[in-house]
């Protein structure tokens, strides 16, 4: 029996997470704004609704696993982990500063971070390894992995797509933060991925396509993915790069640029409405 998500509550959390992401990026003076904001609902739906985890025992054996393959989006993950109390919220302002546990890309060691990532294309393979080990141990854990759409240019992703399908890893749930941009521009112009849904289907994955900012759809997709047996599931989440702040949305110059103090204030005003 699945519990019902409290959508209003999740939406409130998502808004708070966005504020924290922008604050930490502005404080750091650098970092990946657009791709952090685009996956907020995907993370909130996962951590505050679906994922079995215990911030007091981050390595407890019965937990589910989350791998952030698009490591550059880590400000969003850090903010979520801090809200979950994996570590103190004050630590968020140390992002990217010397001596911090909040490295520019995720580093294992910070409570809640399951794998160091940042060099694109490796996370799904790591997730598969976890999933294969869980199967060997007859462990019911589920393994989630968020990839970027630009990241799908990496050949290793498709090697891992083959592996998960070959081993019928129904404990793996891939999530694509399909925000339609990569650092050089629109994904369709840099290297066209379409037809994306058909590609994953042809590789023997179950494909769910959702609005990645609609928490009702996000949580429903996580529930649905759990019921699919005999093959892995991928959720293609249509998202907006820079989502939530009008002057950041679909503005690719904020791929790897942090908001200024002035922009931060404007953004917070807008988010808090």
């Amino acid at each position, binding site marked *: 029996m699945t519990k019902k998500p409290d959508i209003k509550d999740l939406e409130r959390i998502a808004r708070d997470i966005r504020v924290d992401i922008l604050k930490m990026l502005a404080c750091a003076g650098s970092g990946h704004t657009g791709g952090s904001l685009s996956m907020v609902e995907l993370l909130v739906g996962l951590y505050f609704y679906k994922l079995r985890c215990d911030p007091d025992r981050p390595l407890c054996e019965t937990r589910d696993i989350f791998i952030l393959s698009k490591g550059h989006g880590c400000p969003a993950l850090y903010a979520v982990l801090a809200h979950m109390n994996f570590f103190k919220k004050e630590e968020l302002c140390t992002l990217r500063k010397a001596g911090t546990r909040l490295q520019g890309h995720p580093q*294992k060691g910070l409570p809640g971070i399951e794998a160091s990532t940042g060099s694109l294309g490796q*996370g799904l*393979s790591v997730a598969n*390894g976890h999933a294969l080990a869980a199967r060997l141990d007859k462990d019911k854990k589920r393994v989630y992995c968020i990839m970027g759409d630009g990241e799908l240019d990496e050949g290793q992703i498709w090697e891992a797509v*083959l*592996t998960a399908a070959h081993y019928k890893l129904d404990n793996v749930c891939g999530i694509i933060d399909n925000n339609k941009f990569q650092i050089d521009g629109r994904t369709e112009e840099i290297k066209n991925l379409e037809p994306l849904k058909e590609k994953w289907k042809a590789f023997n994955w179950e494909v769910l396509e959702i609005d990645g900012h609609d928490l009702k759809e996000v949580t429903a997709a996580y529930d649905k993915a759990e019921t699919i047996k005999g093959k892995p599931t991928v959720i293609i989440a249509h998202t907006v790069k820079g989502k939530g702040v009008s002057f950041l949305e679909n503005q690719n110059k904020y791929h790897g640029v942090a908001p200024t103090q002035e922009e931060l204030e404007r953004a917070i005003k807008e988010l808090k409405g």
Partner: protein
Amino acid sequence: MEKKPTRDGFGEGVVELGAKRQDIVVLSADLTDSTRAGWFKKKFPERFFSMGVSEQDMISTAAGFALAGKRPFACTFGVFAAGRAWDQIRVSVAYMNLNVVIIGTHGGISVGPDGPTHQAIEEITLMRALPNMTVLVPCDAIEAKKATIASASHNGPVYIRLGRSGAPVITKPDDSFTMGRANVLKQGKDVAIIACGCEVYEALLAHDILKKEGIESRIVNLHTIKPIDEELIIKAARDTGAIVTAEEHTVMGGMGSAVSEVLSREYPVPVEFIGVKDRFGESGDPAELFKIFELTADDIVKAAKRVIERKKKE
């Protein structure tokens, strides 16, 4: 003398481990019989994972296994492990200091007829550049078995370089093998020859030739390139004042470079390098290639004489 490829030692070792420990898993990138991962597959099919010709995927998947508490061995040819999957080894394995053992077979030009694309001559350089990585180059099948077994209890990633061709069995099952501790096989005061892999046998042959000419050479089997046995290397330099390094690998950044890094900092003495000189391998019979690439005992003898001459001049 009995000859046996070092990859066979891995095969025996990993089967022995598999029988004792349930956490041992083996991943293979389609060269299952060649790497001897197939020996494990035959005994423990449920713990063997075929990854297809996807070395990068194999390495990161092995990382996932390690994160889940398993002890994965990821097996392929050295060129495809250390070369093609270098970034995966760097980020997914070494950066997280995971217990992944990477088995790189077909190291060196002794691969023979398959030629340069399949002859790995750069793995020592590539692997020792990575923080947390341990690099082992066993000299024979017995040592390879010991290295395999030891690596499964080591904390952190290990790269084991193995060969394709039959290598003379020069160590004994009860000889000591400790990671990071080199073994002195022959004592000598005139020159020290520090070798790894199949060059250890060539060094032993060189020792006998030199002995006939009245030159006493110390032979060191440097099976662990990283962490390097600084103490033993410094002592060899102090005692002999002349060093020859011998490896079936490029001299650029390899074992000889690792030895020289220690010596130039701690106890500078003349060094001569036996190894592949900034070129690719080529097809051919391994014995013939050893002559072409100047990796034979005779080449080591010449290098020893050169370095002794240099010592005298200084």
